[in-house]
């Protein structure tokens, strides 16, 4: 819920819709034009890897899973990893803004493709600096070095993923045990999120407790390139990794306080005083 709230809020502000309470009957072409998304473009990716993504928001309830689509953008100097629908919405918005197209069409697109993965990151391949943005109730940004992962290559196990024969590797990282399938046919030591260090591209990845799943479902070599970027909105809280994790855990642990921290959006009633809303907290990095 909270994610949709922010995507829609940001998107609607970007297209500057009329904010009247009552439904106004407006005909197409009478809405103010779109403006470009505020972003810092790091590089251009000519290789895009698509990963289907699923995760279990509540580790005590595996019956419920959220699914989505993510992309790994590979440039010469930078890598980018983000939600595919977010990338599309941003791209279409800028395209419409440049071409001064009717913003009503964007409203329909936003309604039809909601993001599911709320982390965006860019990695400097040379320095191994990573900039990570996580959208929870608030939007946090922090920097860190690309982590070293101690992979153990397992012989004998082979699996076909997307028509490519892959080898298996395991490692323990950030509080979870991970299982990856990689292909040396694609000699890029990268994968979804911050995963790196295998002698081939990761084609499938999951933790052994079945909370997080990534599976490659496309790889294209796009001659026109895709931008690798990070957003630069004013709302972003630039902090440290530790403080961002504490902030997100606090928001999930007490959603009523998190929501009351956004003026103009929520005015919590007295009846909630005796209630504490805990949302599940199951981060990909447990440590």
């Amino acid at each position, binding site marked *: *819920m*909270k994610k*949709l709230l922010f995507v*829609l809020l940001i998107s609607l502000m970007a297209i500057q*819709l*009329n*904010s009247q*309470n009552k*439904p*106004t*009957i*407006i*005909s*197409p072409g009478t809405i*103010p034009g779109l403006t470009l998304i*505020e972003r810092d473009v790091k590089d251009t990716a000519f*290789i895009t890897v*698509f990963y289907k993504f699923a995760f279990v928001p509540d580790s005590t309830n595996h019956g*419920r899973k959220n699914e989505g689509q993510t992309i790994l953008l590979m440039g010469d100097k930078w890598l980018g990893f983000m939600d595919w*629908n977010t990338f*599309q919405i941003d791209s279409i918005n800028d395209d419409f803004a440049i071409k001064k197209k009717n913003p*009503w069409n964007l409203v329909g*697109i936003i*309604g*039809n*493709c909601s993001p599911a993965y709320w982390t965006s990151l860019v990695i*400097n*391949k040379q320095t*191994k600096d990573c900039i990570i943005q996580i959208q929870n109730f*608030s939007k946090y940004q922090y920097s860190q070095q690309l982590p070293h992962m101690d992979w153990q290559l397992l*012989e004998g196990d082979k699996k076909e993923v*997307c028509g*490519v024969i892959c080898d298996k590797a395991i490692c323990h990282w950030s509080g979870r045990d991970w299982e990856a399938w990689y292909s*040396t046919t*694609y*000699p*890029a030591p990268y994968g979804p999120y911050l995963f790196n260090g295998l*002698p081939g591209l990761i084609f499938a990845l999951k933790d052994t407790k079945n909370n997080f799943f990534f599976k490659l*479902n*496309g*790889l*294209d070599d796009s001659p026109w390139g895709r931008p690798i970027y990070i957003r630069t909105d*004013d*709302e972003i*809280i630039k902090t440290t990794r530790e403080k961002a994790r504490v902030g997100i855990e*606090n928001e999930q642990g007490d*959603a*009523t306080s998190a*929501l009351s*921290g956004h*003026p*103009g959006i929520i*005015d919590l*009633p007295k*009846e*909630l*005083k005796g*209630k*504490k*809303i805990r949302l599940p907290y199951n981060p990909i990095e447990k440590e």
Partner: protein
Amino acid sequence: MTRYILIIFFSFLVTTIHAQVATRTVSGKITDSETHEAVIGATCKVVNAQGKILTYATTDGTGNYKLRITDGALRMIVSAMGYTEQSFEASAIKEHKNISLRPETYSLKEVPVTVNPIEINKDTIKYNVSAFKTRNDKYIEDVLRKMPGIEVNSSGQILYKGESINQFNIEGQNLLGNRYNQATRNLPVDAVAQVQIVENDQPIRALKKRAPSKKATLNIKLKSSYKLRPFGETIFGGGKGYDKHTLWQNKLTLINIGRKQQMLLNASMNNNGMSLSKNNTAHINSGDLENFMFNPFNLLYASSAVLPPVSEPRYLRNKDIAAGLNHLFRLGKYGSFRTNITYYGNSVRSLDSTSNQIDGAYSFNLCEANRRKVSEHTLNTELHYELNAPKVYLINELSGNISRSTNRGELQSNAQTLIERVDRHPHMLQNKLSLIVNSGVRTYGINSITRYFKRNEWLDASIGHKTNIDLARFATRNTVNTGFIFLGKALDLSYTIFYQHDKITVDTLQITPRCTINSQLKNQLNLSYNINYRRGQILIALPTEILNLHIDTRPQGSQNTYFFLSPSLNITHRLSPFLNFTLSGKLSKSTDNYVLAPQTYYRSYRTRFTPLGDIGWTRASSLASSVYYANLINMLTVGFTGVMTWSKSDHYEQFAYTERTTEILQIWKDNTSKIIYLSLLVDKSFPRADLQIKSGLNFNRREMLIAQNARLQTIKSNIATATLFFRYDHLKWITLSHDLTFNLSWQDHYLGSRSQPLTSFYQILTLNSAPLSKMNLTLQAEQNTLEIENNRFRTNIFIDAAVQYAVSRRLELGLQLHNLLDRRIYEEVSFFGMTRRALQLPLRGREMMLLVKLKL
């Protein structure tokens, strides 16, 4: 022989070579053969004869690699995306080896992209009810209150993000219209699988993608076992209460949700102080007021209507009945026809006594002891047709209600004893029509509401004061709106025409009845301009009205046409990710919203009211500002709000108290009033300790003119409030909360003032526990201490307890104990204007009730 020697020699050589590939480290740099730049992320792997990877490494940011070559290594293979792979004999590799890779010209072997196509996916947030439900929750309203973003106010109205919801649907159908309390307070939470919120939902198909809505639609999804078959529950309860009074509480709910039809039947009755008046409430959508009309205020009042700051179950001696029958039938793909019939009846007995010290140029004491019986019966009917197709949206709703209320009191008023009776019979017939046509290029819409309202009010006081007032009102409002672009921003335009016709007859049975006919025609053009910028937005609105009045009592030649503007400005600005600021201001002018009576009449047994004879005006201006800081890393939020309102009215009411009557005379004279409101709230949580602390400071100051007992005085009254709230729930099976409030009220001194500062203190301590899996315990202690005289306090302590035990899935037993300490009297003193009022109210006393709940 020689051949054998050569074989042996070469085998030895190979063995020697292999023996020489012992574990060693090689390093070097990998570069692009054309640009000579470092190749970052290239893979160097060492494989054996079977192709198994023995060790590997990747190049760092400078293109350097470091790799161990172990025993058994045959080859070292270097590869990178976009480059031709190279392979080297492991034994031939020296300690330091730089490698130059040639860029590849072939296309990368693509993997067909099987990304799911963009799915039609509404902004639907799905709440699984089981995640929010606790044992104490019985009905869906209990769980809705906990869901983030959802607020349920005291009347049962559901708000999402501060806005009232568009619709309340059950399985996608709007069965109840805006009387959805019947569902939220009667639909068992066990029947509900999910609560879906569709954000920014435009329920009108013809307006989808044309007119976004900030509001949400709430949809209840039932568990599959509850669909296509009737279900419900029934509750029987009995007990003993005040003065050995027998208590009862009964309820029946039946629900049937099918594909083409839906039905909800509910019936409740009780006499345990729980008012059922809000069960059938029709909620008003504050963002859609053009589709609502309000009833005119009552003209007659029974005296001593008391509303103490104690919850109703503590003092209300009632018999309440509420029932509702709701049926929806789908017509084709886009149509539906709905029937809603609701009934509410009650009978309330009340006992109270008040002592009013009314000051002015002279003082007067009015003491009243009141034994009253109030009864009310209201029947509502709605017939609603809806067609919600992609190109056409049409609704027509015909509704009506009939009501009858009687308020009979036996009063002791100073020295006299009397009986006062006020009867009221209102009824109403209304039609609402809304039509929107989407032609593809443009959208056209009409909204029309037409109402006929009739009310008879009758006062009969045994001391000879009688009044009969008959009011008939016809009103119609019609609106169209559209939008344009002006200087690159959106400009909204709406035009409304409103007509109202009143016919009022006042008969005091002492002089000839007088009748007056008044009407008004209002044309309003509303412009609003919205500027969004990076850190916020500015909203400017300029409603312009032309009002034409026809007042019977006005002399000929008087001005009847008025033109005025009511501009407003609203700014929201984000100073940082943690800090937000808002500022708003408004100027307005409006007529008073009361019915013009043609002559003097008795409003209650002692109050005689002389109306102005013409409509009054008020000009108001307001300024509000707020600053809000929220840091969820250290879980601290601080909010400050300040509001100031100035208003200037062209008339006021003058009160004169005598032994037998209270005279109210409306006087034409300009007067001003001012209100200041300040609030500071601080909230700090300690998540690791599961402890939350909220605190607040509020200040409210009001200046207004009081004309009373031949004295004209501007009274300045003040209230300061401090609140503190703790919650602790570190243990899963127990939750503790403590709520404290301190009030100080006082008036600025004026000549002859006898008011004094008064303090009050409230606290509520609540303990919830689930010691066994099938059992819930609740214990609550409430204390209020009120200053009724200088340094003299009155304290009330209430202790309530409740136990629920689930015998089986279908059967539940409950025991409720209220007011265990058997408090019997509530006392309070307050100041209003130049009047000091002391109130004494009997309470219900200790009560016990046993409940049996059976799920159908």
